[in-house]
């Protein structure tokens, strides 16, 4: 496999996982902190439902998305099956429960004296939420990291929704599956090493960011 193709695959992996995670963070962080800032009836049930989604098999999500996105499905008119858009949607749905749930927990764990102090000094509404997120930023960043970790290592959903089309929807994980099936273990291992390198790089930089926030 030529090097440029390898790079393309790696770049597409990063792009799809990054975009899916960022979109999930854009929804999950505000919503999760809103939930974490209050007590309300039914929050335990909602949390239990959300936590149960942590165990959602990606393959099952891929299948459901496949059915929804196929021509006769409810989202068929989008024509997103076997496209990067469809794969980003899959990554978004896979990572959202984690980012939402972990942000919720992180913000909910900000202690009452901090909350009271923010309130007594005049924080209200969006500014109050922003204060809580800032106090819980390590946990919130951790939530996004877990989301990205799930996205970049995921194979089941993206292979079904993306179709693993060479040069179009092939990403590192799905390429590893293909090369392994074709018996080209050297390439498969090489792809695996690239995947590992990306993970280490991204997580190391996010961890450094986290450490800086701690100081």
């Amino acid at each position, binding site marked *: 496999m030529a090097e440029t193709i390898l790079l393309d695959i790696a770049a597409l992996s990063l792009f799809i996982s990054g975009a899916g995670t960022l979109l999930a963070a854009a929804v999950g962080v505000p919503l999760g902190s809103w939930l974490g800032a209050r007590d309300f009836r039914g929050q335990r049930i909602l949390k239990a439902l959300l936590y149960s989604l942590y165990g959602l098999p990606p393959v099952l999500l891929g299948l459901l998305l496949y059915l929804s996105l196929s021509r006769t499905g409810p989202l068929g008119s989008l024509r997103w099956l076997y496209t990067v858009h469809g794969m980003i949607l899959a990554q978004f749905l896979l990572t959202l429960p984690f980012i939402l749930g972990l942000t919720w927990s992180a913000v909910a764990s900000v202690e009452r004296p901090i909350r009271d102090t923010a*309130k*007594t000094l005049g924080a*209200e509404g969006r500014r109050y939420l922003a204060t809580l997120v*800032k106090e819980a930023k390590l946990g919130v960043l951790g939530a996004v990291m877990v989301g990205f970790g799930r996205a970049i290592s995921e194979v089941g959903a993206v292979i079904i929704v993306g179709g693993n089309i060479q040069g179009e929807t092939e990403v590192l994980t799905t390429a590893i599956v293909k090369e392994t099936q074709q018996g080209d273990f050297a390439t498969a291992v090489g792809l695996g090493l690239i995947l590992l390198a990306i993970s280490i790089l991204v997580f190391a930089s996010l961890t450094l960011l986290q450490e800086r926030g701690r100081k």
Partner: protein
Amino acid sequence: MTGEDAGLAPLACKGVVKKFGERTVVDGVSLAAHAGTIHAVLGPSGSGKTTLLRILNLLETADAGSVSFAGAQVGLRPRQRRLDDAQRSARLKSALVLQKPVVFNTTVRENAEFGLRMRDEVPGEMASKVDAALARLGLSGLADERAWRLSGGEQQRLAFARACVLDLTVLLLDEFTANLDHANVTILEKAVRDFAAEGKAGVLLVTHDLFQARRLADEVTLLVDGAVVESAPKAEFFDSPKDERTARFVSGDAPM
């Protein structure tokens, strides 16, 4: 100066009751804060002082009674999510300093700026106000430190600076020097006295420390089991208490 003549006091409450389950923690308390004076609410621990302050600062709902701020009714209603206009202006004109030092995970300066930012203070004004407040509490040299690196006493001084930098009419202090060493207590008590002496705001100081009340207060109220036993100007309270329980408390015996 009790709840009866509270009319236009910056902050007053009347007949406030709060129950947690079967236990009545605050039992019909009426009192008021007046501009330029320090009112000490004295009482043994577990006498409902903290809960009372939380109700006065609109952090807790009372089961009965009223809280008024400059004449407007502001008490928090059950299951209320957002503050109404009167409550919001009361909130912006008052601040509570908690017993345990609480600092945000930012720098000392950013901590001190917090309330001013919530009031959309212009940056230039904010910097000079914060500089002055930090200087008054002996924190100027620590402005760029992360607040959590400070000692407990420094953190509490920061918490006080963060509150008194605001344009307040009432400052609420909840056992604000408990567990601090003598040097920090001295600095903080002087800061409270200076703050009250400016004459703009009244201070409501909750404490179990008889001597602190004696050092700081203009007016003292004794709270036992959530109810007011006696409320009087300091000299009268300490020298010629009317209630026998006050006399016992002042002399160092248990009030009941």
